[in-house]
């Protein structure tokens, strides 16, 4: 049928536009030459190997992972109850709370970075890691609340009510009925939050301090000074890591069903 063919073409063209750059980055990282070029002049794995050798990349990678994982978990711990409350109850100031929690997405990063540095970190004398952790959690929270809310809205509440009627405690009903059904939503929120935190630049830029830097910041300063294909190699590896995460998630939880 022609419409299937057209359908496939549309998807193909769009995907090429979206992912083309990814292949370019992978290929540029394989270049044997000394600067970013595509098609690469000669092939070599030396830049990919170099990525693992740069010590600061290793340290900043660890920090970024830490922030992404624990920040997102904390955001979920705060956000899931909030999402639940917003969709199941008609709470006072509901709209206000929704707006407050969604705010971090709208404010430009550099303003957030400076504001936090000047009025939070310095007055309270927070350690850099703690400051980054709090900032990342706040930045991920809106995604957690929004995505989980969306999932909850699609879940009818009568199942919970039925469970409670049949003798289950409220918390029991939540754990037994609600959680399993919003699993994919929570997972999607986790992935979205993880990626947001991991790739976050402007706020981390201001809050980073001596010896404590997130990976994107490290990459940026490395790129600004060195400009060799190792950055392309690093980006390719990171993207690959994310692809694997999504792939595994899809396999185990089939979250394409959710989104």
């Amino acid at each position, binding site marked *: 049928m022609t419409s299937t063919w057209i359908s496939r073409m549309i998807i193909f063209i769009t995907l090429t536009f979206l992912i083309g750059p990814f292949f370019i980055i992978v290929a540029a990282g394989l270049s044997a*030459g*000394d*600067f*970013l*070029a595509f098609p690469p002049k000669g092939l070599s794995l030396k830049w990919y190997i170099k990525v693992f050798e*740069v010590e*600061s990349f290793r340290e900043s990678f660890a920090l970024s992972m*830490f922030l992404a994982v*624990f920040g997102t978990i904390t955001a979920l711990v705060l956000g899931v109850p909030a999402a639940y409350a917003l969709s199941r109850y008609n709470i006072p100031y509901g709209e206000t709370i929704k707006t407050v929690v969604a705010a971090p997405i709208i404010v430009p990063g550099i303003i957030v970075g*400076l504001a936090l*540095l*000047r009025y939070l*970190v*310095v007055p309270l*004398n927070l*350690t*850099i*890691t*703690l400051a980054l*952790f709090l900032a990342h959690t706040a930045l991920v929270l809106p995604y957690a609340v929004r995505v989980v809310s969306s999932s909850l809205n699609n879940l009818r509440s009568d199942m919970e009510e039925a469970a409670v009627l049949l003798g289950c405690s409220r918390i029991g009903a939540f754990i037994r009925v609600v959680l399993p059904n919003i699993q994919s939503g929570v997972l999607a929120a986790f992935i979205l939050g993880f990626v947001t935190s991991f790739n976050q630049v402007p706020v981390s*830029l*201001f809050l*980073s*301090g*001596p*010896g404590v830097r997130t990976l994107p*910041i490290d990459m940026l*300063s*490395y*790129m*600004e*000074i*060195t*400009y060799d294909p190792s950055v392309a190699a690093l980006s390719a590896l990171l993207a690959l890591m994310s692809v694997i995460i999504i792939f595994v998630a899809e396999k185990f939880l089939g979250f394409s069903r959710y989104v």
Partner: protein
Amino acid sequence: MKYLIALSMVLHLTTGAAQAAEKKLTISVYAFAQDAFKKVLYDPFEKICGCDLVIETGNSVERMAKIEANAAKPVVDMAVMSSHDALALARKGLLQSLDVSKIPSHADLYKSAQNPIGDNMAVGYGFYATSIVYRSDLVQIDSWADLLSDKVKGRVALPNITGTQGPLALHMLSKALGHEGMDFTKTIDAIGDKKDDIVTFYGRSSQLAQLMLQEEVIAAPVGRFAWSRFSGAALPFKWAEPKEGQTGGMNVMLMTKGNGNEELAYQFMDYWLSNEVQTRIAVMKLDSPANSTVVVSPEIAESLTYGAELINSLSMLDSGAIIDNRDAWVERWNEKVLN
């Protein structure tokens, strides 16, 4: 298991306080070539002083903002900046005057590096020249005015006014076009007239390098510290010697006020400025020496800004003038060039 994770998290978050115990010096530097500096400067120093060096890098704006934000209790003990950035910090009262008797190597420095911004607030540790890099197979550059000529129309880039190189380029262009005065108004207007012929106003020298290697640009003013990227490249590049001369700048060391770690900071500064270390740095082509007693082979000198003659010939801009006039320059630039 969960308990362990929670515990490690708490420990990780609060270890900031614990580290204060050992001897430690915190420095704020340019991100450039940190691996190399580690070999020739940081590691040897750590062995000598038996202390830990904590390095902060980044671009100058963020580093300055952090120094200012932490003024009451400085995190950074010693930093390196361009001379006008250092002057800006000094004017805000964030620096302490250096006791040069604690820096024996000080006497060996070129005169212009000894007290570059006044009141001994800073000391120069490296020079760089700024001229025009161009594709010798496509064009010949003999004057700063060539930047606005038809020769390079549509293939030329200039540094953004907001960077360090911007005012330097304006300074030399003014000379070439015969415009007097530090307000650069006529020069900025001239650039504004030609703005469609200019590919971009680059921010970082690495960005420019990529553009030149990609053949977007065939000529642009740039600092000598970026020269290694061009000299070894596959395309033929040359460093111009324009008839108006070259310009340049100096990077300086400074110490934050009241950091409580002055002893160690002085020791480090003296070490960095010593003949031994400055020679190592020069040989690795990282920076051009401010210590006049350093001697290098002509081959190495070729890649650096080396020698009293060259340094004294550079037409540098006074730091105070830069700070005082920059707002007006940007204002005019925004109006005439970016509009």
